């Protein structure tokens, strides 16, 4: 019992250390600057355009928040895990008593904290850029958003972990998640109203979490009148929760099996092979 508790504590410690390193890493900062720079440019140009009396920017911002949750859960988890597998971090965890438990706790901490930071970094400047946001936002919204983040990460991270544990290299882990994510973003009404798309595309989009995360975030931050612009003219909160929950459960059933298999497979000689490949090809 004492030993399990110590693994939990070490996992948290590890998560906070890694989070601090990540947030000070110029690579992370430059990446955030580029992506969020693009987001804010889009919001800036949309702020004057109105739909049903609501600024277009106020409809896009929640979509971006929702998409960012999916991207954290799916892409960041996949590339993070693939990277740790490749550079030996995971193997090190395996060689340490209760190291694997602590590693996975740390991963959860990191994903949650970075997503929280993304949300705050996206929201703060938006208070100025996006017309009408200051008037609609409340403390209760922040609370609802908190639950959407948790549910969104639960629905996407297990699948990120599966990709991260089957790819051969960290580079392909990132690429493999980016493409489906970009496709889903394109059809999920993040930048472009889903109501304007063909029926079969609408149905496809509604199978996956990205659409529901965008919708959920819009229900939090957009004014009530904007609900009329959605597919059924309402926020469909119950459906959002049910569909995200279904993805979470599916993920949590499959993922421990996949991870256990991966953990058993990871060995020193595989890392040696990865090293030799890196020295030869440079990636």
């Amino acid at each position: 019992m004492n030993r399990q508790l110590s693994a939990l504590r070490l996992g948290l410690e590890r998560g906070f250390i890694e989070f601090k390193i990540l947030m000070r890493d110029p690579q992370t900062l430059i990446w955030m600057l580029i992506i969020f720079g693009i987001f804010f440019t889009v919001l800036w140009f949309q702020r004057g355009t109105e739909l049903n009396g609501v600024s277009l920017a106020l409809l896009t911002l929640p979509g971006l928040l929702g998409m960012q949750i999916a991207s954290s859960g799916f892409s960041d988890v996949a590339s993070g895990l693939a990277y740790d597998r490749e550079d030996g971090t995971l193997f090190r965890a395996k060689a340490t008593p209760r190291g694997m438990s602590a590693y996975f706790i740390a991963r959860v901490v990191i994903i949650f904290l970075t997503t929280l930071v993304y949300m705050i970094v996206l929201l703060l400047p938006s208070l100025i850029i996006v017309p009408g946001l200051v008037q609609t936002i409340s403390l209760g919204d922040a609370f609802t958003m908190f639950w959407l983040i948790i549910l969104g990460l639960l629905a996407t991270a297990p699948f990120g972990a599966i990709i991260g544990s089957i790819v051969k290299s960290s580079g392909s882990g990132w690429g493999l998640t980016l493409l489906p994510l970009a496709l889903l973003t394109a059809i999920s009404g993040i930048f472009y109203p889903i109501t304007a798309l063909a029926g079969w595309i609408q149905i496809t989009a509604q199978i996956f979490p990205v659409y529901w995360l965008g919708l959920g975030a819009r229900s939090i931050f957009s004014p009530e009148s904007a609900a009329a612009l959605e597919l059924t003219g309402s926020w469909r909160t119950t459906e959002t929760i049910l569909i995200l929950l279904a993805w979470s459960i599916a993920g949590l059933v499959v993922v421990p099996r996949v991870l256990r298999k991966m953990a058993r497979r990871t060995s020193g000689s595989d890392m040696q092979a990865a090293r030799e490949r890196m020295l030869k090809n440079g990636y």
Partner: protein
Amino acid sequence: MLCILDVEGIDSMTKDQKVVEVKNLQMSYGDNVVLDGVNLAIRKGEILVLLGPNGAGKTTTIEVLEGFRGRSGGSVNVLGVDPDEGNEEWRSRIGVVLQSWRDHAKWNVSTILNHLGKYYLPYSTPERKRPLDSDELLNKVGLSAHANKKVNELSGGQRRRLDVAIGLIGNPEILFLDEPTVGFDPKARREFHEIIHGLADLEETAILLTTHDLDEAERLADRIIILAGGKIVANGSADELARETAGKTEITWTQDGKRQVHAASDATNFIRKLLAQHTSGISQLEIRSASLEDTYMAIVQKHESKQTRKEKK
């Protein structure tokens, strides 16, 4: 004749002395046989060096013992436990120096060592304090001056020494090292050898290491095992191996301005005769007994020619 299998040596160890015991270890992937009937044992405080050409099965053997790789057959016992069923408590008694080279690149040197040390705290016992003091350990591996550097700012040799420190932080009863000194400069290598000797002597840590450096093997090993083609082809101290191979000693001398070389199995007798025959005209006499390198080459070559003969049949 070589001592192909030192079964007697293994059996003469008493049970509580044996830290590792491997009997008839088999490993194959499909038709590819990697290990074929490996037997070995390691005592408390003993340094065993595993030598062999690339692909001989050294890393596979170590990974089976570390519990990172399942085996195809045979029995393996490390600290009284089958590595396949080793739990976290068992894991805490084992030190592993990985072949890895860039994990935790952005961590501070002292932070990573401190952090990894904490995992061992719940497994501390009155007889064996866990973890070791991380500052002391950094000092021991010569990294004190770099404690606040990031891991990716270390040179290759320094990084390797950090790996060794991480392997030791849990005060292990057995330490596995897979080619630990690759990329070391001569000074770092010597310091590393001192650490290893100190461990085996003071802490009674049993040590199994692989290397391609035969000088290193000679300097460190209490016992050397040579693996070739998945089989143990020699087992003994460096001296024993040298004596049991061809056992030839190389004698060189200058006679009438010409350099002469002769390989003799009984060097003393040969020189006695040589000097008796030529009472003058012999100078620069050198007698060199077979080095571990000669022994190693002889053993591996003998094994390889046997292999090719088999294949021809």
